[in-house]
């Protein structure tokens, strides 16, 4: 006979669950609506999703005011951990999702948006990512990760093209492998320390002075491989370009931002204590990963003939660039990671949305991919406004001041300088120069070449509706006027990161 468990409700601190539960309730509501009346228009589901995301946002805002006063909160048997990192990354996740979901309101009809399940899965995924970042319990992280990933695989497949099935299966296979690695890593750490909480693991390992360093390294290798897949770090990146190509442009843009920030936060929680407790091997390996990811992805991006694949490789390169923050590990570096990612999400979502509004349902004859460089030739003559906006996003991605990403790069390179990684700072700077070439290539096509015969300006905005234009407008404004937002953002982020002890 088990003794009754006596836990007071206050000690559970159930409010820590509120931000995650809101999208999950939203998802269930969408399913219920569908039960009662099917064949409703996608606008309804977009609206409902947005409403729940707004509620989620306010719950987060509430939690962040509490955090600003009382510091880190634990809840639900100390499984939930609401600290600055969790809040910041959830803000990014929710805001990026709010920018993403109106992209469903396209002019043309696309298969996936006619299913309410798409929106339900979308909200489940957000809930999953939120759980993943708001915990240092490896099991809950795993559950969050898998919830989110499984929803994401399905959403990709729902795009209903040959290539999207291929993409979904590829992503699923790689994701399953990553999940396997993750659970193996977690198992090793559990065997070593008898705990699955990252702070407990850190305490036990520090307590015995890393006596079993060999086993720690085995665990680290599994974890590195797992996060390598999720963050598309070279050499675990091979799925990324194909998956980006197979999914819709909007989805690809979303995938380059939200899943990665969630993985970054977990990687930050797990790897930083390991690096700073003198696991030199990990530092060397991470250093190599960062440099190779940045450089190799840049070189691949140079030779792409399709803009979407180019942006896929560029996203890999940006992920490598940001991975440097985890290697450096100072408060400045960790703040730089969040600053960079916030600015990056505006710019990258904007540039993928530009591809999205030029999406053709059926490829014209003789065209093997939808977003080849040639398609954009002479765009300034046929569709000047769209060309200028696209050029803005490209310049920002290249890190040209004063556009958004420059400030992220500036702060990130500065953190490398401050952290004593001089060579890394130089490599980062030179990689930005290499990257300049392929972003410039698109600008050259748009502004300096003659338009392809038979293409009028409509093709570039064929998919545009007011909703999509609004999103692109928001992204463009965020890209151009980032300079105003940098200081408040930086102060906010630094305070949050510092108060979480990173």
């Amino acid at each position, binding site marked *: 006979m088990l003794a009754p468990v006596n836990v007071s409700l206050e000690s559970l601190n159930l409010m820590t669950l509120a931000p995650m539960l809101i999208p999950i309730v939203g998802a269930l509501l969408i399913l219920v609506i569908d039960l009662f009346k099917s064949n409703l228009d996608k606008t309804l589901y977009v609206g409902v999703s947005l409403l729940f995301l707004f509620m989620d946002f306010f719950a987060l805002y509430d939690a962040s005011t509490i955090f600003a006063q009382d510091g880190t909160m634990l809840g639900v048997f100390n499984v939930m951990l609401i600290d600055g990192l969790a809040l910041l990354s959830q803000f990014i996740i929710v805001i990026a999702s709010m920018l993403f979901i109106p992209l469903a309101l396209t002019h043309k009809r696309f298969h996936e948006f006619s299913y309410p399940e798409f929106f339900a899965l979308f909200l489940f995924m957000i809930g999953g990512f939120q759980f993943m970042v708001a915990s240092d319990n490896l099991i809950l992280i795993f559950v969050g990760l898998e919830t989110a990933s499984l929803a994401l695989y399905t959403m990709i497949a729902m795009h209903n093209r040959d290539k999207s099935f291929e993409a979904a299966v590829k992503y699923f296979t790689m994701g399953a492998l990553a999940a396997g690695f993750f659970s193996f890593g977690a198992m090793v750490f559990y065997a070593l320390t008898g705990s699955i909480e990252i702070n407990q693991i850190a305490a036990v390992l520090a307590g015995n002075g890393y006596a079993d360093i060999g086993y720690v390294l085995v665990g680290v290798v599994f974890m590195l491989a797992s996060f390598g897949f999720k963050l598309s770090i070279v050499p675990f990146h091979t799925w990324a370009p194909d998956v980006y190509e197979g999914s819709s442009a909007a989805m690809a843009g979303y995938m380059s931002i939200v899943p990665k920030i969630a993985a970054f936060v977990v990687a930050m929680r797990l790897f930083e204590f390991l690096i700073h407790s003198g696991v030199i091997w990990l530092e060397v390996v991470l250093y190599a990963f960062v440099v190779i990811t940045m450089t190799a992805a840049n070189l691949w991006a140079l030779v792409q003939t399709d803009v979407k694949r180019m942006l896929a490789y560029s996203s890999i390169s940006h992920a490598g660039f940001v991975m440097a923050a985890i290697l450096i590990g100072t408060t400045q570096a960790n703040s730089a990671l969040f600053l960079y990612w916030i600015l990056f999400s505006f710019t990258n979502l904007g540039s993928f949305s530009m591809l999205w509004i030029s999406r053709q349902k059926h490829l014209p004859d003789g065209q093997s991919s939808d977003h080849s460089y040639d398609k954009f030739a002479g765009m300034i003559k046929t569709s000047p406004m769209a060309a200028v906006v696209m050029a803005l996003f490209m*310049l920002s991605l*290249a890190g*040209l*001041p*004063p556009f958004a990403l*420059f*400030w992220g790069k*500036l*702060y990130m*390179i*500065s953190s490398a*300088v*401050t952290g004593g990684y*001089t060579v890394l*700072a*130089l490599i980062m*700077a*030179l990689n*930005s*120069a290499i990257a*300049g*070439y392929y972003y*410039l*290539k698109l*600008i*050259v096509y748009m*502004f*300096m*070449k003659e338009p392809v015969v038979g293409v009028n300006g409509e093709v570039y905005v064929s998919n545009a509706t007011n909703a999509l234009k609004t999103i692109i407008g928001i992204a463009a404004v965020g890209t151009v006027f980032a*300079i105003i937002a*940098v*200081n408040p953002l*930086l*102060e906010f982020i*630094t305070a949050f990161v510092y108060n979480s002890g990173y």
Partner: protein
Amino acid sequence: MIDHILSVLIFFPAVAAVFGFIIHKDSMRAYGVAVSVIEFALALWLWFAFDSNVSGMQFMELIPVVPSFGINYILGVDGISLFIIILAAFFTLIGIASLTDTKNVKNMIITLLFLQMTMVGVFAALDAIIFYVFWELSLVPMLYIIGAWGGPLRIYASVKFFLYTFAGSLVMLVGMLFMAYFYYQATGVWSFAILDWYRLILPESFQLWLFAAFFIGFAIKVPMFPFHTWLPYAHGQAPTIGSVILAAILLKMGTYAFIRFSLPLFPDASVFYMYPIAILAIIMIIYTAMVAYAQEDVKQVVAYSSVSHMGVIILGTFALNVEGISGSIFLMIAHGVVSGALFLLVGVIYDRRHTKMMDQFGGLAHVMPRYATIFGIMLMASVGMPLTINFVGEFLSLLGFYQQSHTLTLLAGVAIIVGAIYMLAAYKKMFFGEITKDENRNLKDVNKRELLALIPLSIITIWLGVYPKPVLGPINNSVESIVQLMHDKATSVEAKIRIPNVIEGIVITRTPAGEAH
């Protein structure tokens, strides 16, 4: 308004460019001229209100941008930057006024106005990051001008121009971040303000590395000898207006930045690197002069001669004394006027004949006497004839460097004679002798619109050659304070000797060096 004159000077053209989108394309040229006239008038007002007896910064403005990271929008102007700003306004004006029939003239003028914003911004910024913002931003309009209106190889030329400069600047950015970090270590606050950095004395070993990082960024922009390969392409492919602005203003960003950043921040390193840089500069003078002699395209002759004269500017800058630096700043202005005018002149003949090959010409003095006269004046100025504007600058630069090394100065002097040879040879091929080609018999002489640009340039060339004091006075004042600052900051014995003490008994406030680590 005079308190914010620098901000007005920077952003007036940008705002005007944005409004330019709604102007009808037939009225665009008039609009562009009107805007640049106002801008030029504002620049003259700045000169009028400028107190030439003050050596420090004037009309300073400060707006915090990212205060938690020490980035502030700081502007200010002293004798060094004042005239380059005026020159930038002037060249945009005559560039737009003399713009010949161009396709998409509306886009061209909007681009030029944006370019003007970035040019004035670079020379007025006193915060390293704001400087960097304008420095990088200036690449985009120029990329578009070369890439959209250039010759057959325009895309290659424009991308090469962009990437070369962009890569160099990123290395410089890392240097700037280091500098800010050292300042943070010494004082506990982040700051990118150049005037704050001036007070920081760094150990020589740090100076050497940081100097190198900044050098890469600046040397590519100048462009100095091993990094100059982008320039002939850019000039060769750019439309006339692009070449004019590039030679007259954009290249000056590099040499200006040497005086604004490298010398006062790293006095010991400047002395350490003085000879290597001087040798590079002399190679640059002689080598490009010889290359210029071998060219058959008159625009390439002018382009290489422009690079060659940039070498003299560098040499004067690294004389590290008042004569040399003042001379090099004066030569920047002179070079801007003269090479800008030469590119305009090449543009005049290109518009008529659509070729720039010298063997297509010959005997032009018979059919285009006024053109030949103005070309002659500018050519004399370019080779450094006394009583022309270039002579003053070249003489002072060489005089300055003579105090550091006699042999090297002699070499540089010889190189200027080579300069005379190729320019005169080019002039002979184009203008003297009989008219050999029938197409040249009925060429029209320069028209009113072209004279509008060329006459003021000729007047300036001779006026400042005869009486340079109004410009040289303020320059000299500010340079003296910079040289004094360098002397006081220098830590090594050699640097103390090489950099003269201008004024006895002035002590500057300084941040102790030892802690800066």
